[in-house]
């Protein structure tokens, strides 16, 4: 008896499974057609894997912009913005497949997001070939270095700009003989040379430099090597998981040399302090390109996100700005043809023009034919000729009693 019942259950399962699979495959064709064709924008961001923690805040910010613009009547006389969001899994190969799907199945006009340089590097040629706009939140210089027909826009400070900031923070603390412990990764490696140059320019010295591989089971050897040289301070640009292990080894070995790191390692939306506890984290300085925290636009953005007033979103603001700038450029150019609207991006985001903070107000001004200079939630949104962002502010913080305290904003 039980045997027969078992067989029936399995059949049901198989039937339902097949039905679900058919439905999933047929999905793109069975969707209802809309009256006015929406403007589709793709987003490739990490929800799983090493950088998975940042995906949901970026999604929320992009949805916020889309909802506000759609509620105010959409773009180009009533076409709504439709977002299609894909998980990059923090992996270049998955990022490429996601990009292909957005371009070829969903036929998006632009793809935004792109947290993580390897993913952007692997995907960018696809967007260039398709003639669609790519907006990235990653730092490696190489992303915008090669010709890209003006299609790539970086909503982040590039890596070479990070190094001197770290150097200045350490010099201000009186650390002149410093050491570097850096992760082997395209974004971190390109900030090491500018860091050294700035230290040396101001009369300091980099006495030791160790490059470590990501995902090591232990960092004991590296920690001993770097802290054993007894520097005044150590700069450790890395990511959350490896930085957590490094700080644990450092504590276990009884070192007390001051550490300076990046906020994606030493904060990561509070994950770092959660990982190591307040005692180990005490006194670690960290910095990151940050939104203009005191600007009314950022404050309003935090309210709209429904977060506590002192929240520091490192990447949500970028997604907010990316979608806003894309929408403004489409409206200004009067077309969804990416090769055309990408050319007017500087016209809506760079000075001169009326400084405007709100994407919906900015759209109004664009429709009236006024010159505007859009100021985003994450940055001022000013770009140079190759699509790199200018004038990023860096936020320098220190961990005291298990909390991140603001030290200064470095322009």
């Amino acid at each position, binding site marked *: 008896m039980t045997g027969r019942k078992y067989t029936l259950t399995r059949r049901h399962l198989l039937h339902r499974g097949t039905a679900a699979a058919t439905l999933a495959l047929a999905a793109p064709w069975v969707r209802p057609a809309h009256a006015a064709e929406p403007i589709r924008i793709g987003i490739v961001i990490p929800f*799983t894997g090493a950088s998975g923690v940042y995906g949901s805040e970026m999604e929320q910010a992009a949805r916020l912009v889309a909802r506000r613009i759609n509620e105010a009547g959409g773009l180009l006389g009533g076409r709504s913005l439709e977002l299609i969001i894909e998980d990059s899994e923090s992996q270049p190969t998955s990022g490429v497949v996601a990009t*292909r799907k957005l371009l070829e199945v969903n036929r998006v006009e632009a793809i935004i997001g792109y947290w993580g340089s390897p993913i952007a590097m692997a995907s960018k040629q696809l967007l260039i070939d398709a003639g669609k706009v790519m907006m990235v939140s990653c730092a*490696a210089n190489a992303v915008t270095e090669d010709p890209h027909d003006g299609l790539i826009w970086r909503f982040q400070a590039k890596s070479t700009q990070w190094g001197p900031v770290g150097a200045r923070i350490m010099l201000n603390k009186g650390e002149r003989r410093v050491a570097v412990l850096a992760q082997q990764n*395209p974004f971190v490696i390109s900030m090491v040379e500018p860091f050294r140059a700035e230290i040396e320019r101001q009369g300091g010295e980099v006495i030791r430099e160790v490059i470590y591989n990501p995902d090591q089971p232990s960092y004991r050897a590296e920690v001993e090597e770097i802290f054993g040289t007894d520097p005044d301070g150590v700069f450790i640009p890395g990511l959350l998981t490896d930085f957590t292990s490094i700080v644990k080894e450092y504590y276990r070995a009884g070192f007390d040399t001051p550490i300076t790191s990046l906020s994606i390692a030493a904060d990561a939306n509070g994950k770092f302090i959660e990982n190591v506890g307040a005692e180990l984290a005490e006194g670690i300085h960290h910095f990151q390109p940050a939104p203009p925290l005191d600007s009314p636009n950022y404050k309003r953005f935090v309210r709209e996100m429904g977060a506590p007033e002192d929240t520091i979103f490192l990447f949500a603001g970028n997604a907010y700005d990316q979608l806003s700038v894309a929408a403004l450029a489409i409206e200004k150019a009067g077309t969804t043809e990416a090769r055309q609207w990408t050319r007017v991006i500087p016209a809506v985001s760079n000075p001169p023009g009326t400084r405007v903070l709100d994407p919906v107000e900015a759209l109004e001004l664009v429709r009236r034919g006024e010159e505007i200079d859009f100021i985003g939630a994450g940055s001022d949104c000013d770009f140079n000729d190759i699509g790199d962002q200018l004038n990023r502010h860096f936020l320098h913080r220190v961990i005291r009693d298990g909390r991140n305290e603001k030290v200064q904003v470095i322009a």
Partner: protein
Amino acid sequence: MIAFLVTILTLVAIAAILALALNLQWGLCGMVNFGLVGFFALGAYAAALLSLAGAGPALALLGAMVITAACGAAVAALSHRLAEEYLAIVTLGFGEVVRLTLLNESWLTGGALGLPGIPSPTLRLPGPGGEHVGFLVLCLIALALAYLVVERLARAPFGRLMRAVRDDDVVAATLGKDVVRVRIAAFAIGCALLALGGALHAWHFGYIDPSQFTPIVTAYAFMAVIAGGRGSNPGILVGAGVVMLLIEGSRFLKDVVDFVAADQLAALRLILIGAGLILFLIYRPQGLGREYRRSAASFPTVPAPASS
């Protein structure tokens, strides 16, 4: 949609080549290769570097296959005294060595920055996206050739020898078979096929960096072989297709399900892939296909042993 199917099929073809290679090494010859991704990466980098240096596709492919097969032969020769699980550890170590070398020898491999702008062989077919379809055709030709080679090997006396070594190497040695030579040959041929997969990967993506070659590639190949039925080449083709469709097809989930947030859906998708494989293994543990066996009836009749 058609264009994306072309992408998926290209990935399926590359995954199937890897699975066929693993089936030759592990399925037929019993050599567990946990460092599969290392050989795959070696093939990809060798083909990419040769292509970037101006070698034609055929030369780049040949170079990649020879280099990788030589490394495979060396690994197999070094570990010829090791039983199954120890070979697994050696190959796992080899995979790590390759990854760390690629990551740190920047003068050759571009280090963490990777190698951009790899020229790929073009077979431009008419119509929009013709070059993608053309590349898919190349991949399918490569897959067909790989399939013919492994299937021919499996049915040849050498295939019988591999299965004998897998099932009991002492018996094979007692019968006068050179077990070490068989193992080295099988492993090297498998590695040459992995290099073929690697070269296609490098050409398909046009940009390679060490973060693309994570152990998950090895895991997918094992999944394909287990799902397809260890030892059965036709089953492996289906297995690789099923695994890749499960992984990539589930991307369409979010186009139908709008009531779950994207981050939850992303996690759910990976859970579903895992659950699908577990269900598959519960209900069909032997896999989809069966190993090639020549039935006794097809052999010329031999006199029956005298009954006592």
